[in-house]
């Protein structure tokens, strides 16, 4: 049985993500205690809002130094995924630096409306256990104004005036730019796949 700990980094989607694990029969505990976090089988970094305040909350709790040292599977959700990268153009924020690359704002000239809000298709670009069972026509719910570049860590992309990283995976660090807790069966499957990782 997975022992999931969600990093209590503030932000308002904590309850939603917790409920999504609950629907999979897993009680996800909230914690900012390094000992408790290290003991977890799986760690989730949720978060919505802006990169600067998000990093500030992690730093205030000392989690910015802890997260890169974790060895169990870690999943960043939405802003949580963005914070895994080196930096974000949002407020020119230095992030955790676990994944290479910088988040850039969607270009309204190419994309039209920003934020990118709604259901969009995710396309797998390489095999990953995170994508198991998702099929070719998997739609997920996105809400964001900044996007991660497609790099070697990208396992699925999404198209909004150009491709960006929708799902990432490198060593034990994983992330979803969309909201799995609000992406119906596709989201539930991704979370279940994450819980299968060891």
């Amino acid at each position, binding site marked *: 049985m997975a022992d999931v700990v969600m990093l209590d980094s503030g932000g308002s989607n904590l309850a939603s993500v917790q*409920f999504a694990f609950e629907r999979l029969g897993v009680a996800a505990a909230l914690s900012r205690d390094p000992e408790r976090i290290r003991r977890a089988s799986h760690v989730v970094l949720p978060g919505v809002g802006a990169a600067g305040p998000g990093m500030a909350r992690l730093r205030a709790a000392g989690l910015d130094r802890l997260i890169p040292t974790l060895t169990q599977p870690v999943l960043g959700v939405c802003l949580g995924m963005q914070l895994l990268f080196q930096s974000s153009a949002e407020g020119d924020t230095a992030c955790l630096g676990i994944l290479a690359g910088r988040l850039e704002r969607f270009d309204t000239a190419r994309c039209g409306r920003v934020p990118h809000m709604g259901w969009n298709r995710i396309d797998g670009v390489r095999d990953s256990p995170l994508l198991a069972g998702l099929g070719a026509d998997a739609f997920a719910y996105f809400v964001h104004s900044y996007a991660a570049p497609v790099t070697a860590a990208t396992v699925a992309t999404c198209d909004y005036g150009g491709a960006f990283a929708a799902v990432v995976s490198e060593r034990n660090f994983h992330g979803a730019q969309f909201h799995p807790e609000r992406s119906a069966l596709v989201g539930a499957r991704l979370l279940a796949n994450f819980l299968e990782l060891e």
Partner: protein
Amino acid sequence: MLTRRIIPCLDVRDGQVVKGVRFRDHVVMGGIEELALRYRDEGADELVFYDITASPQGRSADAAWVRRVARHLDIPFCVAGGIRSVADAERILHAGADKISVNSPALERPQLIDELAAAFGVQCVVVGVDSQLLDGELRVHQYTGDPDKTRVVPRETTAWVREAIARGAGEIVLNCMSSDGARNGYDLAQLQAVRAACAVPLIASGGAGTAQHFAEVFRAADVDGALAASVFHSGTLPIPELKSFLRGQGIEIRP
């Protein structure tokens, strides 16, 4: 390709979903979670819950049912009704809602939009606008939940939409009052005018009666989503049928 959203709107009163003509003759349709999950199963892309008694009773929507919905529902949902402060919004968002929608309180005090965006990010902040053409000008209306209190405010609609976005609205829901409830189609002219002024997602509301109306509003007004209530609640237009019709028309729709 980003898909166009189909959004049923549910009116909530005393913890139950009701339907009726504004404040009169409400009929209970069922429990909130039960109906939310039914629409989810039918393929709704998002839900809006409007607590119709919150504002008249001088309170914001009840966080207890918001939490119950968040626990069971796995598609995004927005809550509207009586949200007048960051503290009100925080209760609803922390209970698990994805977005909150403000309307009359934002007209009373536009600074509310700035405060909500600063506290939670623009992606959580929806501004609802009730509007119709008066003497050749699109005009914003306030307190439309109560026919006795409804009044015209001295604001032109596209100017208010621009201001709301500049203050931090991440999405606009435009309720076209003259078509609302008539089921004769969305107010395409008004939606086109607001679309031109709206750089964030725009949701059309008011007038849906047939699947063709949805196709028209997506094509002619390029809206990101279409909201409707009675046409779904009455069962005259099942969502699976609507979505398959729209796909047949070449409109991008989530399967």
